[in-house]
């Protein structure tokens, strides 16, 4: 089994639950609930866990982390087929890397995908490793592409990494000073 980081696989990916939420009921039709506030009120009464009917889709995803061993989960991105992009000019922009929200997957390296695709940078999914069909990789990113992808994900989600970078830089400076 290939390591998942940077690879594309078929996966069972859920859509985010949205109102009206449909609660599974034993032996009865699903109960629709129009808003999240009703769940908050139920939780205040001590009932906070339900089975929600959530649509899922079998689709290829691009895995952007290794399997987190403590949780047996990965982060992954949904893909956009090129034929769904509005114009040929837009397709060219994505191929050139000029659209920051769509990351081109080179068809030569993603031979398992039937058509040309881009990963949607903002479509971060958390998936159990068991939701990935890892029998065969559909293709993989190069290491430098994965770095560029991670940078774009951090930027599009406005992740505050400045303190982390500063601390790392300061620790490197301290190490350099100790060597003198």
């Amino acid at each position: 089994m290939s390591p998942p980081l940077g690879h594309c696989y078929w996966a069972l990916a859920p859509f985010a639950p949205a109102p009206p939420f449909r609660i599974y009921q034993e032996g009865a039709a699903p109960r629709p609930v129009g808003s999240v506030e009703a769940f908050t009120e139920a939780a205040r009464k001590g009932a906070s866990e339900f089975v929600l009917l959530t649509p899922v889709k079998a689709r290829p995803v691009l895995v952007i982390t290794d399997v987190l061993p403590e949780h047996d989960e990965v982060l992954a991105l949904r893909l956009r087929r090129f034929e769904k992009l509005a114009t040929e000019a837009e397709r060219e922009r994505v191929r050139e890397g000029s659209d920051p929200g769509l990351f081109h997957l080179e068809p030569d390296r993603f031979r398992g995908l039937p058509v040309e695709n881009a990963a949607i940078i903002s479509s971060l999914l958390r998936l159990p490793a068991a939701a990935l069909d890892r029998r065969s990789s559909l293709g993989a990113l190069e290491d430098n592409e994965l770095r560029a992808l991670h940078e774009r994900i951090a930027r599009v989600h406005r992740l505050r990494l400045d303190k982390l970078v500063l601390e790392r830089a300061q620790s490197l400076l301290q190490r350099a000073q100790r060597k003198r």
Partner: protein
Amino acid sequence: MTLTAKVVSGNEVRVPDPQAGEVTVISRYGKERAMLVHPDDFHRLDELDRMLAEAAELPSLEPTHEALRAHLEEGAPGEPITDPAALAELFG
């Protein structure tokens, strides 16, 4: 951490004349207690600190109309298969 400058009048303390490029370490019981640096050095270090903080801050990335459309459309469910006969055929 950004440096902040605390101004003390020269009449209140007696300090040796700082030289550019030189740090005077004031020690007590063998431990570093304070350091005296030349104003040029202090401002240079302060500027470096600010530049590092600026470099570490990631510029935000604004998605294009096409990327937003892809996000919305691929994140929205279509027509799920719920027909029992079709499901039986697919999954046995």
